[in-house]
């Protein structure tokens, strides 16, 4: 893990260094000692300013996450308190308990997990072969690429009405399958596009050697190419899982109660006359955990996944 991360960072050091010594070497008489001292002071000041700014930005960008995380442990009164409570007087876990039971968190969590896992398996199984075929053999050529990319870019909302009618006719609304099947439409173009890039990176010589040894094409793929692609496939799977986990629109339209996923349960909690912010925060904290973990531990792959493979990172 560590070793693979190094190359990404090393190029980061190459800002113009311009250390005083080098400048001095170039123009031996141009700078007096006072000038040098002044430069050094400015440089120190700039470094301090840089870290202050980094800290400030970090504070701003993490504050909303902090607020919801700390909110999960507040008691209800603290949400309706002025001035706002930045640090709860004592940490209560009641929000989690009530969120999971009274507000249906357990059922939603189950649905989210079942749907996300099943969808990930389906997308990867169907996607890997298609991606290999497109990446290695250019099946369908440019048109095929364009088709997949258009699907990837299209706003999912435009498919909701037709899918709703289809699933309604099939009496599939409000079941797990309606979600893990419809999410294929959202996730498969992504998975195919990103994995296609991973397969393109694997040199052809690998399979050619296997073919020369008399293995079948499928065998060459399964025994020689696939193992090399496993890291890429695994990361793609994590992304697909997360997209399913976070998905809101399809779940909002295709489920009513039984198959409600976590985001839908969360959204439904604002219906009452007083919003239960504590329970919302608790369930929100659970909802964001996979995403936060993915960001922290798979940062290296984030740029490639999020730009659909356009930036290799």
């Amino acid at each position, binding site marked *: 893990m560590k070793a693979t991360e190094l190359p990404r960072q090393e190029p980061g*050091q190459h800002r113009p*260094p*311009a250390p005083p010594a080098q400048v001095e070497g170039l123009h031996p008489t141009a700078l007096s000692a006072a000038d040098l001292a002044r430069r050094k002071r400015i440089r120190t000041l700039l470094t301090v300013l840089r870290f202050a700014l*980094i800290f400030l930005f970090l504070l701003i960008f993490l504050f909303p996450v902090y607020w919801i995380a700390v909110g999960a442990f507040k008691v209800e009164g603290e949400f309706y308190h002025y001035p706002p409570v930045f640090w709860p007087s004592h940490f209560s876990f009641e929000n989690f308990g009530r969120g999971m039971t009274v507000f249906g968190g357990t059922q939603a969590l189950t649905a989210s997990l079942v749907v996300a896992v099943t969808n990930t398996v389906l997308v990867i199984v169907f996607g890997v072969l*298609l991606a290999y075929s497109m990446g290695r053999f250019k099946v369908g050529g440019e048109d095929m690429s364009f088709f997949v990319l258009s699907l990837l*870019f299209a706003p999912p*909302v*435009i498919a909701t009405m037709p899918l709703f009618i289809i699933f309604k006719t099939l009496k599939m609304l409000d079941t797990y399958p309606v979600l893990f099947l419809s999410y294929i439409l959202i996730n498969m173009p992504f998975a195919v596009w990103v994995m296609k890039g991973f397969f393109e990176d694997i040199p052809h010589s690998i399979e050619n050697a296997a073919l020369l040894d008399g293995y079948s094409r499928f065998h060459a793929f399964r025994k020689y190419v696939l193992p090399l692609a496993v890291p890429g496939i695994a990361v793609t799977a994590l992304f697909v899982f997360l997209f399913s986990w976070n998905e*809101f629109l399809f779940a909002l339209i295709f489920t009513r109660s039984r198959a409600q996923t976590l985001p839908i349960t969360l959204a439904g909690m604002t219906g009452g006359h007083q919003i239960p912010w504590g329970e919302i925060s608790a369930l929100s904290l659970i909802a964001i955990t996979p995403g936060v973990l993915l960001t922290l531990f798979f*940062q290296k792959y984030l740029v490639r996944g999020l730009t659909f493979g356009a930036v290799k990172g």
Partner: protein
Amino acid sequence: MAGTQRAMTIEQSQKRFARLIALPGMVVLVLLVVGPLLYMFVNSFFLKTLATPRPPRFAWFQNYGALFSDQRFWNAFLKTMVIMVIGIPVQSVLALVIALLLNKKFPGSRIIVALFLIPVMITPVVAGFEWKIILDNRFGPLNYLLGFFGIHPQAWLAEPALAMASILIMDTWQWTPFVTLVLLAGLAAIPKQVYEAASVDGSSERETLWRVTMPLLRPVFTLVILLRIIFIFKIFDPVQILTGGGPGIATETLSLLTYIIGFKNFNVGMSATIAVVQLIVITIIAKVFISLVMNRREGRQS
């Protein structure tokens, strides 16, 4: 002769194999795509709602005419454009500043970058909730903090202009880290020698930034701006949670309006029409994306 014949059969068998393994995935995609697509195109020519029992009626381009003369459609179009035209430049500049700050490695910089990226992967619904609490006019921390600067509490989500600003703040919060990430990757890809050359030439840091770094970042900027345009076309969940398109229709985006036409008004014909329009726009953007981003990449590889 025999050799070429054999080569051709290998090529043919390879083609057959490639098509065969592409088949399952293609079938799944086509099943999920072609049905809805046909349904959409056909219904966009019908007056058809689920709200009344009246049978659907073929109406040529009447839906399209109605859509393009509907102020609510243009409002949604405008609101989506506002998010793009204000949001993307603000996020780009902010991200560039942050990327330049983070570009020089220091102890712990990896952790800092990772922490910065957290907003990108936050469940969009939760993002909506986070800002709903923060922007609350009575108990929200933002109004409280603004109080220290002598700014009176603002009704963030109740005033049309402020509600739009709220959406922009939320979008900027969630997506600036993404832009930063892409720019950091772009910066990392600039060869060291380029900077060395600039420093030997005696360029100041500011000159180097404008003359060297910025031009070299152009391809990544193109990519990230196109991606942001695509993402903003899709934006739904956080807006639905934060403002629900309100007050009134002040923050109603295209995706939101499409949802409302379909599942609040149950106007099947019209929802198909607005879907077709968006599909056409997205197809054009995909073409642009391919010619600007993908072909450039392929060209570099070969």
